[in-house]
């Protein structure tokens, strides 16, 4: 028989939260009914097979805090006690925990209580726990989770409007947000992606332990760090070798991985043009996760000559008896490329290289102020599963997540068409006016 659980979530990035929970449920093949899920609530009561399923589901979540075995809920402490004692599973839960060592904790959302916590804990005496209280290493942690209504924008509430009670099953992976915080990272750059959303991206992309993850626009390696954290063997490439080299022996992508203790899972970063790809065709890439260049800091470039006629015959130029292009210090010329064409190439590559069921996830920027519908790139083999928007003042970016369904899928396609109406870079520098 299924059991009731309470998920306690963070109230940020709500556009991404459900996608993360669904993706993790799918990853562990858990059937979860999302019909009572609400974007504007930090609480979600669900039914699951057992504690193991609950733990699997939440252990790597970034946008939730923890999952609890559900004991009851109420609008005040009295109602909470009534609810707990009225549950059909109450007597069983009581005897299951009778002799365990335990402690009580309180979690508060949007407020804090001035009530006497010891007295509140004592009001639970009817559960008749006989185990010892152990503040350091208890076998079980029982938690009262309170929701408050703030009195005003600056004044938090002091009397809870809703209370839940439960036994802690599993804390989420939210501590990783601190661990991978950019402020503490030895090597980062102007394009490094913040820790929280890059970890969330890796969860929605379903990066799996023992799989291969590829970031074709790795820059300073933000997504590689997230992929490594979730146990994948990570490969990155970037056309700009300066980002990859970093700033000396102590400040590069490899030293980041050493600090995080994930060196074994960091394969390499390659100086490579994604559109002239050198990863062998027979290599299965399980996940592609990236933040393509929007061309803001510099225009999008690929290999090749902008004015091919100027380079006719240049392949025969020799320096000190060696062909110039074959020398160690040769720097090839690059030509401008459009974001549309680059994203077309990315979708095509994903359709060829991902296994069926494998995910492609990437970020795409759009200007908000135009009354022009954003056209999301589509490929006939790829199902667009998520389109999660993060709003800024005058622009937004969205995480697009596709699942490779193979050639039989025949979904809509808009590859090869000009989709973007205005160059994002031009709009950005004119402050979207």
């Amino acid at each position: 028989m299924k059991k009731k659980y309470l998920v306690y979530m963070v109230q940020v990035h709500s556009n991404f939260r459900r996608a993360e929970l669904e993706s993790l449920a799918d990853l562990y093949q858990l059937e979860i009914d999302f019909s009572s899920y609400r974007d504007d609530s930090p609480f979600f009561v669900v039914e699951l097979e057992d504690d193991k399923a609950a733990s699997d589901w939440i252990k790597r979540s970034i946008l939730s805090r923890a999952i609890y075995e559900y004991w009851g809920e109420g609008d005040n402490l009295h109602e909470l006690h009534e609810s707990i004692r009225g549950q059909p599973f109450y007597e069983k839960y009581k005897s299951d925990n009778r002799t365990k060592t335990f402690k009580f904790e309180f979690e508060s959302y949007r407020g804090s209580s001035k009530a006497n916590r010891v007295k509140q804990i004592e009001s639970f005496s009817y559960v008749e726990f006989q185990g010892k209280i152990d503040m350091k290493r208890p076998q079980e942690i029982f938690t009262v989770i309170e929701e408050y209504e703030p009195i005003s924008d600056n004044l938090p509430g002091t009397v809870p409007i809703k209370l839940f009670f439960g036994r802690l099953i599993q804390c989420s992976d939210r501590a990783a947000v601190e661990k991978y915080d950019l402020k503490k990272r030895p090597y980062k750059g102007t394009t490094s992606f913040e820790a929280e959303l890059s970890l969330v991206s890796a969860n929605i992309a379903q990066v799996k332990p023992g799989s291969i993850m590829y970031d074709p626009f790795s820059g300073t390696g933000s997504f590689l760090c997230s992929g490594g954290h979730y146990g994948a063997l990570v490969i990155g490439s970037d056309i700009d070798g300066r980002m990859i080299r970093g700033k000396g022996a102590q400040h590069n992508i490899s030293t980041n991985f050493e600090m995080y203790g994930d060196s074994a899972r960091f394969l390499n970063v390659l100086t490579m043009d994604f559109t002239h790809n050198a990863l062998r065709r027979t290599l299965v890439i399980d996940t592609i996760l990236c933040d393509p260049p929007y061309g803001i800091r510099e225009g999008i470039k690929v290999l090749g000559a902008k004015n091919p006629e100027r380079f006719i015959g240049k392949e025969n130029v020799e320096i000190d008896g060696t062909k110039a292009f074959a020398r160690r210090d040769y720097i090839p010329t690059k030509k401008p490329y459009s974001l549309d064409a680059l994203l077309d190439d990315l979708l095509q590559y994903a359709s060829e290289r991902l296994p069926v069921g494998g995910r492609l996830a990437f970020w795409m920027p759009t200007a908000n102020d135009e009354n022009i519908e954003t056209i999301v790139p589509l490929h006939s083999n790829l199902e667009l599963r998520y389109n999660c928007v993060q709003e800024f003042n005058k622009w937004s970016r969205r995480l697009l997540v596709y699942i490779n369904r193979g050639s039989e899928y025949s979904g809509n396609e808009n590859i090869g068409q000009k989709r973007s109406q205005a160059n994002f870079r031009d709009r950005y520098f004119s402050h979207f006016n």
Partner: protein
Amino acid sequence: MKILTTNFLKCAVKACDKSNDNFPLRYSGSECELVQDPSIEFNEEFMTNIMDRIDWDAVLSVAGDLGNTNLPSTKPLLNTAEQLSEDDLAVLRDLHVLLVQTSIKEGTMTCRNCGHVYYIKNSIPNLLLPPHLA
């Protein structure tokens, strides 16, 4: 560049995709500077996963380029359903040293089809192409 990476890299020139000689690349044994990082710990599960992904002929080819001819001529078959035997673990440990702990710090790799030479500089392979090959 970890030796494992050599197992994933082909020539970047598109015309070479028609050839079977664009993978693996040929490594210049005499010019390659190898370094070892013994601090990367052996992980049985990780190496078992790697074994599923690697092309054994390419491992032999690259190891041969670099002067290592001690590897078995066929890919060791691991019985992952049961506990790995001591012999299997010994093979995995050897491969861990070769593929994960050893890197090419400086060197060159050459396409066996078109002959283009790629450099590995300060452990980072450079796979960019001149305009006449792009």
